[in-house]
């Protein structure tokens, strides 16, 4: 047995271990942090442009000892006027991302991790040689997938593809954006972008718009919304889930998922019945609305008759799950307003079908809210030449290429590209550039896209961070972030006024990256021949100078200025006067860099040739009948025993673009669903009770197409027959803050590859939800 001596010996050694353990291993983390604090830093400010979403807000970057430490909005920038959304304010985390690529890499089978570093010159030369060969092999073999970035590099990549004799320019748009595009093309016969003049509306009807939580262009919509609410505008939100948008509304109307179009047309029906139609507008500015007789004497039903026949409130109530009384009341309020405006899905793949977009547009047309203050506007275009247009229009007398002469070009989708490649149709695509996009992650058919990418011999990614798509590439030429390079962006503000932002590099480069625009110019130069001819600039800087020239000679607009100066400019321009802050190109360039950019603050309503350029300059409302389903059947009803209706929504904090999932944003992903760092399934408590699901418990959501895990969040602000999941999680590859975080509910949707991606299945997906251990 143990005696005392042995015991004391053991005791002593034990004490030694316990006592010295911490001393040896305990590092003072305080000291590490203290050493990073610099006393009396030198301070500087620089402009930049946030490119984490299509708003392209102006940034003011604060540098301490030459390193960016905080960002805030550029107060002169007309898009954000000094404000920033969560994404913009967190954007430095992308700059300092510990998992950013250090430089160009090439896929090598036997290298560690499958990738090996490669020099820039070597990388560019490799692509150039390849391209040269591919171009010689025939047209249609080069493609690009671009994000929704609004800068020159995207356009230059498009130009490169076109120069190579291909029209495979794929913009990875959100389904809602694509539906809006398509609506504009079908109804107005033009390209462009819808802008909602929310600020001047006095009754805003949001039909599943996700206005305040899932819109990709945060700034424009939010600022307009705030102004509208401040000036006393009413707001009704219809959607399966209340969301932040619904919380800010005077009334929330819970509707079934995928019934946006039906509700919009049901309200339109009531507006006609109640005599709220804007007949002057409808007869002068639209066609296909009233019945007409053609030259042969054939009678045709107009949209009006169709609405009256098909969208009786009773049937609409059945489909949407909204009460009859509610539909009638909402329609009356909407019709009685001075400046009513309806806004459909702005993002979120849930129910953003083409029919929805057209139906909401038709509703706006019925009350004449198109191109009037507080209505749907069309973004004005800037005077810069379009670099990726199919055939360059001839320059006019002053040598500028007018932007408005843009012709309708066939749009391609990522899903189309995938199908093309997988089914081996037409010429094989041999080189694919992926720029500013992560289609494997963001597409509804990501797995198919990945499969297709694997079949393309050369896939070049320009992503500065690891993404799911990058993993499918052969070569990565990482682009510099906007903050570390000379950059630009061409967008429109919330009133559709064109804005061109320009900014010099605000911060030193943190990795061996390059401006992709420069890379494309270099590529074109090395390819030579016809391609090189179409790239007449030596560098991006030179191209920007040429752009400044175009701005100067356009004779419109002014550089950014304080709000009062801009208002003054507007007052002047309304009566045909203009006194810009510059009187030479040199001064313009200087001003561009000091203020952040140029914009044309005048906006004229009622320019119908611009809105509807074709034929008689009228909006073709009959187009809405094309994507509508032939019959109205009550939408599939969900219930806790038959399966719930899946509603997939998007959180604007969780961007699907490369590098969009910054840790600050992941942490605050949704203000409602407590869903930092995970995916949540939002359920009505009543439903959860039936399904025996607890708040915070893990649940498995499964459809016939797949299953995802999520954390249950019970909320009284969602329909009981619906389960809501959000996109933005479920990256397989990425940095430490996004790889493997959350899950991807898109995999649950049915018919993912059909419909070219933009008109997603309007039949809602039924899912089962059950609590796991």
């Amino acid at each position, binding site marked *: 047995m143990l005696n005392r001596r042995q015991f004391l010996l053991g005791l002593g050694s034990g004490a030694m271990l316990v006592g010295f353990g911490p001393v040896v291993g305990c590092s003072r983390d305080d000291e590490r942090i203290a050493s990073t604090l610099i006393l009396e830093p030198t301070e500087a400010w620089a402009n930049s442009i946030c490119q984490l979403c299509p708003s392209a807000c102006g940034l003011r970057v604060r540098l301490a000892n030459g390193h960016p430490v905080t960002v805030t909005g550029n107060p002169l920038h007309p898009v954000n006027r000094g404000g920033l959304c969560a994404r913009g304010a967190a954007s430095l985390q992308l700059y300092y991302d510990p998992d950013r690529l250090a430089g160009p890499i090439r896929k090598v089978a036997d290298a560690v991790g499958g990738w090996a570093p490669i020099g820039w010159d070597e990388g560019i030369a490799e692509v150039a040689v390849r391209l040269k060969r591919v171009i010689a092999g025939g047209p249609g073999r080069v493609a690009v997938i671009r994000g929704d970035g609004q800068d020159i590099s995207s356009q230059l990549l498009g130009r490169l593809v076109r120069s190579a004799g291909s029209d495979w320019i794929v913009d990875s748009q959100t389904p809602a954006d694509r539906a809006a595009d398509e609506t504009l093309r079908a109804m107005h016969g033009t390209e462009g972008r819808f802008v909602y003049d929310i600020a001047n509306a006095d009754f805003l009807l949001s039909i599943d718009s996700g206005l305040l939580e899932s819109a990709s262009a945060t700034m424009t919509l939010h600022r307009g919304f705030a102004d509208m609410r401040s000036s006393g505008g009413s707001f009704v939100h219809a959607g399966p889930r209340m969301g932040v948008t619904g919380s800010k509304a005077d009334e929330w109307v819970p509707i079934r998922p995928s019934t946006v179009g039906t509700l919009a047309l049901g309200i339109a029906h009531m507006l006609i019945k109640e005599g709220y139609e804007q007949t002057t507008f409808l007869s002068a500015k639209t066609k296909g609305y009233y019945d007409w007789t053609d030259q042969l004497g054939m009678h045709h039903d107009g949209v009006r008759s169709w609405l009256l026949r098909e969208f009786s409130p009773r049937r609409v109530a059945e489909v949407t799950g909204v009460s009859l009384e509610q539909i009638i009341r909402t329609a009356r309020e909407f019709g009685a307003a001075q400046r009513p405006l309806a806004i459909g899905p702005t993002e979120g793949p849930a129910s953003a079908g083409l029919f929805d977009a057209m139906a909401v547009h038709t509703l706006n047309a019925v009350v004449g809210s198109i191109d009037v203050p507080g209505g749907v506007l069309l973004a004005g275009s800037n005077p810069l030449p379009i670099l990726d247009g199919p055939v360059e229009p001839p320059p006019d007398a002053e040598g500028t290429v007018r932007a408005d002469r843009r012709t309708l070009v066939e749009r391609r989708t990522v899903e189309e590209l995938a199908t093309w490649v997988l089914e081996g149709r037409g010429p094989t695509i041999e080189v694919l550039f992926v720029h500013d996009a992560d289609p494997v992650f963001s597409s509804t058919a990501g797995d198919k896209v990945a499969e297709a990418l694997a079949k393309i011999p050369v896939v070049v990614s320009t992503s500065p961070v690891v993404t799911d798509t990058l993993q499918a590439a052969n070569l990565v030429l990482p682009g510099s972030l906007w903050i570390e390079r000379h950059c630009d962006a061409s967008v429109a503000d919330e009133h559709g006024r064109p804005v061109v932002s320009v900014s010099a590099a605000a911060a030193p480069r943190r990795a061996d990256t390059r401006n992709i625009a420069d890379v494309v110019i270099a590529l074109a130069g090395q390819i030579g021949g016809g391609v090189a001819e179409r790239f007449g600039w030596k560098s991006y800087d030179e191209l920007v100078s040429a752009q400044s020239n175009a701005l100067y000679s356009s004779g*419109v607009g002014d550089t950014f200025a304080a709000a009062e100066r801009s208002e003054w400019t*507007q007052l*002047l321009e309304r*009566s*045909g006067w203009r*006194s810009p802050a510059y009187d030479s190109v040199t001064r313009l360039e200087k001003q561009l860099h000091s203020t952040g950019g140029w914009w044309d603050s005048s906006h*004229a309503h009622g320019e119908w040739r611009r809105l509807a350029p074709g034929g008689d300059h009228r909006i073709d409302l009959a187009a809405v009948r094309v994507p509508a389903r032939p019959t109205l059947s009550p939408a599939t009803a969900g219930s806790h025993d038959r399966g719930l209706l899946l509603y997939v929504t998007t959180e604007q904090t969780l961007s699907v673009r490369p590098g969009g999932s910054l840790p600050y944003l992941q942490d605050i992903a949704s203000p409602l669903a407590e869903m930092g760092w995970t995916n949540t399934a939002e359920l009505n408590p009543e439903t959860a009770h039936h399904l025996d699901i607890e708040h915070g418990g893990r649940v498995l959501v499964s459809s016939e197409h797949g299953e995802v895990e999520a954390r249950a969040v019970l909320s009284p602000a969602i329909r009981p027959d619906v389960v809501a999941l959000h996109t933005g999680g479920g990256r397989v590859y990425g940095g430490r803050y996004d790889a493997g975080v959350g899950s991807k509910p898109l995999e649950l949707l049915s018919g993912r590859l059909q419909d070219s991606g933009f008109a997603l299945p309007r039949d809602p997906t039924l899912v089962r939800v059950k609590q796991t251990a």
Partner: protein
Amino acid sequence: MTSKKVAVMVFAMAFVAGAWTVSYAGASQATESEKELALTAEDAKRTTLTGEAERGWSLFRDKGCVSCHAVWGQGGVSGPDLGRTRTLKHTTAGQLAGVMWNHVPRMWERMEEGGMELTPISPEEMSHLFALLLFIRYADEPGDADSGKKVLNEHQCTQCHSVDEPGETVGPDLVEWARYVNPVVWAQKMWTHADAMKAAMDEAGIAWPEFRDSDLNDVVAYVRSRAASGEKEYLEPGSISRGKQVFEVRGCASCHTADDGEEGAPDLERIELPDTLSGIAARLWNHAPRMLEEIRRTGAPAQELQAQEMADVITFLIARRYFFAEGDAEAGGKVFLEKQCVRCHAIGESGGDVGPGFDAIAGNASPVLMAHAMWRFGQEMLGEMAKVGVPWPRFEGNEMADLIAFLNRETRGEK
């Protein structure tokens, strides 16, 4: 700070100090108000013409004017929209000052009701505001497309000109002019074509159309609504000095002079000009045939003005009338008595002593000064006047300008 700024400041300070000592020494009985009046008079005189409309706009915003008054629909609605020419009739600064005097008690009431405070406005700031109001005056409110269409039809313009319709017509498709946002450019374009047009119209038997003041603006709006946007051409805001130069150098002055009593070219200072720029442009158009004839008759060299030059000239003409319209001192004397100013204010020995004496003005009275004085002392004055039983004066027509002329005449002499 640049040396220029320093010099200006030093000068201003020396000036103020000098004026102060002079007025103090000159009138040992001078009240505080008198001293202040003297100072503001000096300031006002110095700044009248240097005021800038743009600064006027930022003051208009910062001082909170914009929360009640709108300009072309932008701004508050409790006060009148200053851009609506039809609601506010005045063409000179003197008249403007008069209008301001007239409506200010009501405005104070409104402000009090709204819980707003009276922000002080310095003479310099007042002059900027005057410049802004001048600008609003000449810039005119935006046109109305529907009326424009009507105008084109009424005047049979559409017989020769199409608007955004394919096919051959006599005259050019007006859409080609859609980019010209400014009615002055239209006037100028029409002006240069006047000869050819006159001939064509005579042939077709169409009468020379006479435009009303707002017509041209409406036409522009209509044509623009038919056109694609993105193509806009503007003019630089007119410059008074350039306009003066053009007016003299290009020979306008040779016909349109004062004292030329003959029939023919009217004296542009005398005749009643329209308030607005598009009105003047319309007037130019309307009298084109007569003028062409006159030019032909007198053999004066035909002048082809560029659009910008025309804008400058028109600005010059309006500004001249706006700022330099002199009042009639005799009539002003009557105003001084009739409005009972004399009951409280003294000039020289005569007049009451409730308010400050006017000698300190020393010939520096101006619309800006009057507006400033009203803004600065008005509320106090209103109270005093209520006590004495004098009604708040209303200035009609040129009465304010006359009063200014009278004050200047009476106070200039002594010093």
